């Protein structure tokens, strides 16, 4: 596991993200006190595959909505929706606000257009996968994770 980053603005929140190794690619993990918060953090972990989320200015807002039959497929749908928006808008995102209503996710993603000099984007993400896919709650809160193909 890589070192987790605390979100300062959340003070004592358990919300944080991590990466875990996969042979050729990267695993992303979001942790939070709610499912929605874990999904927000998983999205930050996704951004961190490309660039340091703290370097992203949140000047533009993009709305995202997706549906899936279960929580795990919803995580894949959510991350893939972000991969799509990043690709077609040429953007990176540094802040996310997620609401989950049963099988529907509604979110806003805040970010900016890629600035190669400042962001030093490492790699494009091809897609989120169902490998090591898990969305579950435990005594420490919610965990949302999967491997992303880069």
């Amino acid at each position, binding site marked *: 596991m890589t070192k987790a980053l605390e979100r300062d603005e959340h003070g004592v929140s358990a919300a944080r993200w991590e990466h875990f190794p996969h*042979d*050729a690619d*990267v695993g992303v993990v979001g942790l939070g006190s709610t499912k929605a918060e874990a999904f927000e953090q998983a999205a930050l972990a996704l951004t961190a595959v490309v660039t340091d989320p703290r370097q992203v200015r949140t000047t533009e807002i993009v709305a995202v909505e997706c549906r899936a039959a279960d929580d795990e497929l919803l995580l894949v749908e959510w991350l*893939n929706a972000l991969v*799509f928006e990043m690709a077609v808008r040429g953007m990176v995102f540094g802040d996310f606000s997620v609401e989950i209503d049963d099988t529907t996710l509604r979110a806003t993603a805040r970010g900016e257009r890629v600035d*190669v000099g400042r962001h030093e984007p490492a*790699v494009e993400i091809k*897609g989120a996968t*169902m490998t090591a896919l898990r969305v579950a709650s435990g005594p420490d809160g919610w965990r949302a994770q999967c491997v992303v*193909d880069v």
Partner: protein
Amino acid sequence: MDLSSLDKKSDHEWWIPPAGAMRVPGVIYGSETLVRDMDEKVREQVANVATLPGIQRASYAMPDAHWGYGFPIGGVAAFDPREGGIVSAGGVGFDISCGVRTLRTGLRTDVVESVARTLAHELSRRVPAGVGSHGRIHLEDDEIDAMLAGGAAWAVQHGYGSEADLDRIEERGCAADAVPAAVSPRARRRQQDEMGTLGSGNHYLEVQRVAEVFDEAVARAFGLAVDDIVVSIHCGSRGLGHQIGTEFLRDMAVAAPRFGIVLPDRELACAPVDSEIGQRYLGAMRAGINCALANRQIITHLVRQAFHHVVPQATLDVLYDVSHNTCKLESHVCDGAAKPVFIHRKGATRALGPGHPDLPETLRPIGQPVLIGGTMGTASYVLVGTPVAERLSFSSSCHGAGRAMSRHQALRTWHGRQVVDELAARGIIVRSPSSRGVAEEAPGAYKDVGAVVDAADAAGLSRKVARLVPLVCVKG
């Protein structure tokens, strides 16, 4: 991988005996060291593929196999639709038809070394690479349809290269029976501005020197000699292929129970070849292959422009173009008789032996060039298809080095600037918009490609012809 769980058939062939739901054995090719160093997940994934309906002969893994998505990367498996055989989006992967194309420049090392810096500049200026880069071509929807149906042939019709190039591409540069209508609006949108772009990650464009020749006769037939300069392009179907993979993985995972297919791993998402979704995927995936072939054709044109600007006498003929992530309908011998099967190669290279009817006449007596990509600091290889590979692996071979270290670990181990400087000291010029990207792709983060190629050669999957070392590397 625990070797005690495998039956050693020879120094380079290891079997997983059928157990549980496995319909056929698993076969892993590689030296003892390579196989021992493989993740345990590879064994598990090879065994899982062996459970899928309609699988023929065995579930194979090439010497560079590593943990993939459902299928191992380096996995090869064939399915017969008349036996309920399936097609799997995970068995092809996200980067449909990612592959390598090598061009012979007609130039010698001394000529290119003297202009290498200018060449590196021209190549990095003309071939868009990296996150967020766009090509100079914008395609509207009807043009995307034509591109998806026509592949490299479409690109040639639009002035990117010549008819002669097509002879040296699998299926003459165009996968038949592509169905552009099966490609979603989102996949199209991702591709609108990405034609002729290299991408990022392990994709690259390299100017390489032939450093060593192992088989003089075949090298001569391929037009390669020590100190010749070639150019290799490694990239795939860009956003369009990624989106097709994403959508069909999801749809097949949801649909599989409807067909009574029990998936030991959701990522093995598949559907019967003869189902509506199976046919739709094949149509879309073939369109994705055509997108990758058109993309490499356009990049070839840009490379030619860059070279001609610096060294006008450069010729830049296509040696060959191979695709790594595909599902193709091919004829193979199963149970003693040849029959059509849908063969998945996920991170594996088709490797046809001499005399194969699908090879162009000029290559038929020799066998197919098998192009193996290395890292920006080590070597790439040209191999040739063998007659025995049909029996061993449905005429398939390895595709590259494979990572030995995660991206995160690489980032903690190297700085991009340090990698660029160290390579420069060895005479290798690296051009990349991303220092972090270079660190993640540091040569030390990869397995020893030489060991992989030696194992492919020793196992008989293909035979070594030449070793190529980089002079210039353009990374995304």
